[in-house]
């Protein structure tokens, strides 16, 4: 009798292992960023603030990830000994080629998101959605969902979908939960214009 159950539990455990451990590895492909970047060095050593690179334009639009021209303002020539800075200067600045950053928080075309209304009006800190990204010393690998094509950050770090922090997940349900929590309308046209 026990042996009979053992086979059943063996099947169950195998599948649980495949589903919870192997599946995430298969589902997500890992890609390295084109070069490394240290927010920590820029903030602590260079004394820069977040707004130096991630600023709002005069018309209220958010600049997002800075364009190459912003990097070139300081890095027209190699300043230090970092091999990544050398890649930046040699491969991008001198060739005037935009850096193909892999954007962790990239949303699809059918979703409209305004940084201005969240930061300027709702007074959200960047870390509310992006976590401690602004203090990291290196860029973590980008994980792309092989089925949906989205970044893993959209689903969240846990394959179970359980959130561990406010920035863990950027799906529609996360947006809707936050809107509900802050008593902001959740109508379709709010985000899908």
């Amino acid at each position, binding site marked *: 009798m026990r*042996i*009979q*159950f053992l*086979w*059943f*539990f*063996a*099947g*169950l*455990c*195998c*599948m*649980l292992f*495949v*589903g*919870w451990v192997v*599946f995430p590895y298969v*589902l997500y492909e890992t890609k390295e960023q084109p070069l490394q970047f240290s927010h920590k060095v820029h903030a602590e050593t260079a004394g820069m603030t977040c707004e130096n690179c991630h600023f709002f334009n005069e*018309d209220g*639009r958010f600049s997002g990830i800075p364009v190459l021209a912003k990097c070139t303002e300081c890095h027209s020539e190699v300043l230090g000994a970092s091999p990544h800075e050398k890649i930046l200067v040699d491969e991008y600045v001198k060739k005037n080629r935009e850096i193909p950053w892999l954007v962790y928080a990239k949303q*699809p*075309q*059918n979703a409209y998101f305004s940084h201005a209304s969240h930061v300027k009006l709702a007074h959200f800190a960047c870390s509310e959605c992006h976590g401690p990204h602004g203090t990291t010393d290196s860029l973590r690998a980008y994980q792309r*969902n092989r*089925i*949906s*094509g*989205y970044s893993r950050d959209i*689903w969240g770090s846990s*394959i*179970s*979908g359980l959130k561990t922090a406010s920035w863990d997940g950027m799906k529609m349900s996360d947006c809707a939960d936050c809107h509900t929590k802050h008593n902001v309308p959740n109508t379709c046209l709010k985000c899908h*214009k």
Partner: protein
Amino acid sequence: MEINITRREILRFVGGSALGFFLTPIPWKALDDSAIWTQNWPWIPEPGRGDISYKTTSCSLCPSACGMRVRCVGNQPVSISGLTLHPINQGALCPIGVVAHHLRYHPARVSRPLRITGKNGSPQHTALTVDEALIEVADAMKDASRQAQTVAIVDGRPGRTASLMLQQLAANIAHGTYVAVGDESLGVLASWFGQPIDTLAYDVDHAKTILSFGVPFFDGWGTPSRTARYLDGKPGARQYVIQVEPFRTRSAEIADRWIPLRPGTEAVFALGLAHGILQEKLYRTHVKDLYEFGNLIMEFNPPAVAEVCGISQDMIKEVAHVFAAHAPSIAIAGTAGSPKEVQSAVMLLNLLVGNIGQIGGIARKRDLPCARSAPKKSAAMSTDFASIPDHSVRVMLIDESLSSCKLPDALLLKKLLPEKGIIVSLSPFVTERPCCTQYVFPSQVFLESMAEVTNASDIPVSTLSLSIPLVPAPIGLLDPIEFVQCIARSAGILNIEPGTAEEIVKKRISTIYKEARGSVFNAVTGQTSELKTYSSPDDLWKALIAGGCWMDAPSPVTSLPAVSLTAVVSAATIKSLKLRTTDQLMLVPIMERSAYGTTSVSPIMSKVGQESGLRPYGCQALLNPTTGAAVGVIENTSILLQTKNGSFQTRARFDASIMPGVIGLSATDPDDQRNILALCDMNTDASILPTPVKIQKV
């Protein structure tokens, strides 16, 4: 140690795995990701990236000309919203306007001229060059001239500069006639008074009572902000709306009062109201022959009308009293394809309460500058379809570049010469009409070309707005002015005004400037100011191409000359309205009533519209559950509908909003719609009548 694995143990292992599978994220995550994948198929076009800009313009999809703010990314329009301060729409847009920028990608768009031949249901499309199509059409026009046959030029949007050129074209063609298509009921009234149709409009905003005969008053009729204003208003402070129609439609639901008539008895009910108004001496009119008219409609007394219409006598008396006493009031019957006697009977009510030319009634507008050409021949004067003899038109040119022609196919075919008659339409989309040869010349869609928008039927003053091109149009498309010039050139007509649409429209704007009347809304500043304050025609032009709107000064209140009631609604017409009841099951086609019926909509809009119930689903027969029980039909089963004109198989759906004894047959597919109309009896004016029907279970 040897382990023997039995088949049963393998099955247990598989069973455990199967249970484990559902306790892992695999099925749920894969399902979620697959759903997202379908939203991001690689072949779905993505708007280009670029700077975000906002442009203001006016909507040209209907004559209301709502002010719009278009959000562009890299010069590509990606979304549209209403201009809050615009005097016409006050920030509101209809669902079609919100997605108007999708029309460029409509699957039915034509990019080359087409010759469409073939019988109903199996049309054959032949792509032609513009020159080839022009030669074939010009040959037909010349042939018509030689054989003294009519060339009818149908203008779907009278009042534009292009309309003026269509009139010029008609005036220069032997046996040419110009037909302006507008609100059909106002057309009836205009013909009684000998006025152009675009000089009359409903002054809905100043009316206290609205009597709507089947008009989708809250479902796409008129300017979109009106419904919102009505819903915001408090009963007593807003108009009192009475909706008269057999079905409990959205408009009937919202209206203050719904009068559920038996289908096909609208004209009888209207004459019953006229009888009530005369009896109570509530008329305020100076018609010539009130006494004679009273005698003519004597038999339309409350008991007789109540029996025919299926409502109470008190209801008739009450509606007649409210309509006449709670002035100013307007009766509206503007749906396309309603019988002419209904429109005449309803317009008669407006005559009786004396609201013609009055504030809150049927307004008389001043003519738009350059609205009409000096007629060189009487044949080119604006006329209506009724005055064109049946089977006399050899070539019918229809300008459908801004909105599809509301005239029923049956009416067009009735006027065309059998076999030889052709229809030539200028349209951005394929417009197939059965049983005749048709040429379609492709035109630009909204946001691709300059278009003038004038004269909504629910705005009591003349207006003019310009819709401007925000994106380049594909090569080879024609705007209406270019179309007239090309047709005229091919037919050997030389005295048509030359120049581009912009040059010709600019001349009209200069004339409006010289008239120095009315006011101009400036979309950039959000201010409305007197036209006199503009320093030059160029200033006015700049304001209009930036989404502005010129509104004429209200015309002084003047009545029109009295007309003879017995002349406009003859004894023969009244006798044709049968005062008899029927126990037969009646079939009533339910066609698209709102703006869906007159303009092409975004395919995405169709999806959203269907899901939210804005459009009827597929093809189905709607019947009241009591009717279903009486004829032994079960919901959602196939039934065969048989009339004397043919039979049609469809699915039965129970709907308590349909009155007992009536089957409402609806379809969204054009072929189904044609088959449904073929089942029904047709009036002499090609309108569709309620038709006795039998049901068979399939």
